[in-house]
């Protein structure tokens, strides 16, 4: 009787551990289902304290993903922002999170969503890469290497 109970407890523990392991695997892969494409940072002259990063985030996973913050070793901090032009007036708002729906994509592009990069820690040249980490609500992270380009090289209206 007691032996059977222990057996059951052991089974339960194993089940829980296995479950936890599966969850871990799942959350590790959640970050992998999210990809950043065409990430770039418009080159800015030295002295400017605020830069911007644009990219397309693609979610090929089976669950929605939520970007809650971003950071970079190349900047003091990063804020998620949205520019809005409404009634002829341009405003910029910090936003708490960006949801990337399953099988969906979200554009970080001029006059819209963007990553505001604050306080560059080093001088940048064209073709340098800026390392950005996007943090998801589940604790996962997506690593992005954004190339530094002149705006006219990329073309404000070009779509790769």
């Amino acid at each position, binding site marked *: 009787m007691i032996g059977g109970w222990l057996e059951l407890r052991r089974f339960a523990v194993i089940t829980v551990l296995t479950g936890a392991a599966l969850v871990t695997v799942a959350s590790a892969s959640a970050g992998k289902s999210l990809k950043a494409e065409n990430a770039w940072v418009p080159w800015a*002259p*030295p002295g400017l304290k*605020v830069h*911007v990063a644009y990219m397309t985030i693609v979610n090929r996973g089976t669950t929605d993903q939520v970007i809650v913050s971003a950071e970079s070793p190349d900047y003091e901090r990063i804020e998620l922002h949205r520019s809005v032009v409404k009634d002829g007036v341009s405003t910029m708002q910090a936003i708490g999170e960006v949801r990337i729906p399953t099988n969906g994509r979200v554009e970080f592009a001029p006059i819209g969503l963007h990553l505001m990069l604050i306080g560059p820690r080093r001088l940048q040249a064209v073709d340098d890469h800026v390392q950005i980490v996007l943090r998801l609500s589940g604790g996962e992270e997506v690593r992005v290497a954004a190339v530094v380009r002149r705006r006219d090289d990329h073309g404000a209206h070009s779509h790769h």
Partner: protein
Amino acid sequence: MLKRQQLRVVATVAAVVAWASMAVARVNGVILDRPALVQAFTLDDHNGKPFTADSLKGHWSLVLAGFTNCPDVCPFTLANLEQVVAELGLRVRPDRLPAVIFLAVDPDRDRPNLKDYVVQFHPEFIGVTGAIDQIDRALKGIDAIAVRAKPDARGNYQVTHSAAVAVIDPQGRLVAKISPPFEPAPTAQFLADLFHQRENARAPGNGQ
């Protein structure tokens, strides 16, 4: 301030680009029924030279309000204006090409970086700034606004400002405004059309 009824929408996709039928892009342009003289103001350009309402005379100008800590909308607009002026070069004589003037409305933060910020888009673009009351006068002259928000705990603050670009004629009068997205070819066509129309109107017996 300009009254809204003074503004007449003349350019939509259909209207302006009708005869440039290849262009599918948009122009958001309005031409004022009556041009409005930009009233006196005194600012400095990015080289520290005085820049006044009279500096707008003798040539066409495109004037936009912005601030150098604006990483998204302002650079997007300036980069597009560079392309607009390049496109205009294919359509009008060099002496009719407009000056591009960036009215920096956040002087404390703008002054140190103004030249670098502006000339990255074109070496002839001009950044101007100065005392707040003079900035406000210049803003009024181009029918624009700017609101500096209260600083956050880190001392950072946002600036809300008009997104439109003011078109100033060689008499120093506000004659039109164009709004995003400033797609280069149709915007250049809109401006070329406007320049021709105004110059024909001023030449008796030559106009339509």
